[in-house]
């Protein structure tokens, strides 16, 4: 990898570390019942969201999955708003209506948090259509997992985006498993880029454990999209270090496989590279971890202090107009 400046390097590292520590804290908070429902951690996949988001501008749209804390933080949603959402508090980024799987922030064009696997893809196509029709130069980045590739919505959405040459960047987080089902057990043909190309969307696979590689590939792809060449797909090969969700006993993956992937930890990997180039010293790392810990603490404090939405407002915002309240 060609390293960026020290400043950029530290920024990427800070972003990945923030996600990592945030997720670790979320896991703890889940075990004590502060966070409930389903919780899907992004640990191990940090380089994907952080790398891909580098290629986006504030005018671009993001459509995310239910494993989206990393996507949300990398997009710039404040950790406190995300944590408060997972607490179900009214200061959460979805006012406590969505929880872990449904983070939204319209000011950052972060259009959720989708828990129907594959359900975000058509929405992303539509957002891109709206931009195209309004002659806005934005890109819509749509995240989804390898599991979503099996859903009809994948083929349908790629075809439609390609047919209409819409500005969509499809980002497949291929972590090799859909819950307990390994890629080769849910796909007869496992090359996702080949599928994209058969649908008319040029694609590129990239090492999803390497933040710089993801960034570079995302920049290349979004440049093509911005140039009006139609949609692109990025397949980031990655791995989740934790179980699918907090409910999952993770019986379907071999310990050795997990350990093998952990050896290419995107954070450890990047730290070593920065260190080797003399861009990072121990004190930097300590300072960074300290700052991130403080951010996460602050996020938790914000969530703890946040108010509950009044029960009387239960029916608010089912409709935009107030007539059915």
């Amino acid at each position, binding site marked *: 990898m060609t390293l960026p400046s020290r400043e950029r390097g530290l920024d990427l590292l800070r972003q990945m570390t923030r996600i990592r520590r945030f997720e670790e804290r979320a896991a703890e908070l889940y075990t004590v019942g502060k966070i409930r429902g389903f919780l899907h951690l992004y640990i191990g996949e940090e380089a994907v969201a952080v790398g891909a988001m580098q290629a986006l501008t504030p005018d671009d*749209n993001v*459509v995310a999955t239910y494993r989206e804390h990393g996507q949300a933080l990398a997009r710039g949603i404040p950790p406190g708003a995300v944590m408060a959402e997972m607490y179900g508090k009214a200061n*959460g*980024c*979805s*006012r*406590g*209506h*969505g929880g872990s799987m*449904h983070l*939204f*922030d*319209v000011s950052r064009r972060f*259009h*959720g*948090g*989708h828990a*129907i696997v594959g*359900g975000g*893809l*058509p*929405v*992303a*196509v*539509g*957002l*891109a*259509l*709206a*931009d195209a*029709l*309004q002659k806005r130069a934005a890109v*819509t980045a749509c995240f989804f997992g390898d599991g979503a590739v099996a859903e*009809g*919505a994948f083929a*349908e*959405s790629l*075809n*439609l985006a390609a*047919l*209409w040459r819409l500005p969509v960047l499809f980002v497949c987080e291929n972590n090799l498993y859909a819950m307990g089902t390994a890629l080769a057990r849910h796909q007869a043909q496992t090359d996702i880029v080949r599928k994209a190309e058969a649908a008319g969307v040029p694609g590129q696979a990239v090492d999803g454990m390497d933040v710089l590689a993801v960034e570079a590939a995302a920049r290349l792809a979004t440049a093509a999209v911005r140039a009006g060449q139609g949609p692109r797909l990025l397949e980031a090969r990655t791995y989740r270090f934790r179980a699918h969700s907090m409910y999952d006993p993770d019986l379907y993956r071999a310990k050795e496989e997990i350990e093998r992937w952990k050896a290419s930890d995107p954070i450890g990997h990047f730290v070593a590279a920065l260190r080797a180039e003399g861009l990072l010293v121990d004190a930097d790392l300590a300072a960074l971890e300290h700052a991130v810990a403080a951010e996460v603490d602050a996020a938790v404090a914000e969530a703890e202090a946040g108010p509950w939405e009044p029960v009387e407002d239960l029916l*608010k*915002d*089912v*409709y*935009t*107009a107030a*007539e*059915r309240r």
Partner: protein
Amino acid sequence: MTKMTYRDAARSALRDALRGDPRVFLMGEDVGRYGGAFAVSHGLLAEFGPERVRDTPLSENTFVGAGVGAALGGMRPIVEVMTVNFSLLCLDQIVNNAATLRHMSGGQLSVPLVVRMATGAGRQLAAQHSHSLEGWYAHIPGIKVVAPGTADDARALLLAALREPDPVFVFEHAALYPMEGEVDATGGPGEIGRALVRRAGTDLTLITYGGSLPKTLAAAERLAGEGIEAEVIDLRSLRPLDTATILASIARTHRALVVDEGWRTGSFAAEVSAQIMERAFYDLDGPVQRLCSAEVPMPYARHLEDAALPQPATIAAAARAMLGRDG
């Protein structure tokens, strides 16, 4: 007022919407070159061009979901799903996204999406093209549901749908497209959530909507010939439901028959009946009755299809029976 078919009236609303608001566009299977499966959008491609009248591939879930996304992105999409049976392919995007995104995002998003589809039987299209599932849609919080039963409403309710900030589903009855009626061809939007008394009467209230409206009015004519004066309410909007108009009528007539082309069990007619029960029980001189479609996948053969559907004769017979006037 101009004499016009239900089809032409719907088209006039589409045309006005496309002319009046650059954010409006139409998409769906064969809405463009082909001119629409039911010819509703005939001529619009020529007038508005392929950017605004967009033929889609056969991908219901995706083009409806794309409608949701385009609405989030500031457009005012009108999506045509050819037939309600095909909409079963896109219910995920409808329930899990269109209806849900606003509330689930804590009120940050709005989805100003209009989805039009043909519903209902009567054209011998058999069991994969003929059902009436608008009652299901009326169950979903976050959306609105209208069902025009007159040519004028085919225009007015579609225009109204386009003014809503939330998703509206417009169910056009496939058998009504060729029906002519008086249309206010330059008129504005109707009111969503407002039922209309289409015929005044004193002996009982016939409550219906959509494709059953003309049949119910025909039944009321027959009954009038027998000295029975039926009031006919056209619901027009299933969600929200104008319960006030229903209750006011029942306060006068004390009896109600709900006519609904959906299958009986779990029909929208059941909801109407339940609401009357809850809110007008002591006004009733007898139980509210329902006349619905037979619970069978719609058969092709004409005599069987006819027998499966509410008809003027069966509506009139049910009304007579409620008044103790059978046979």
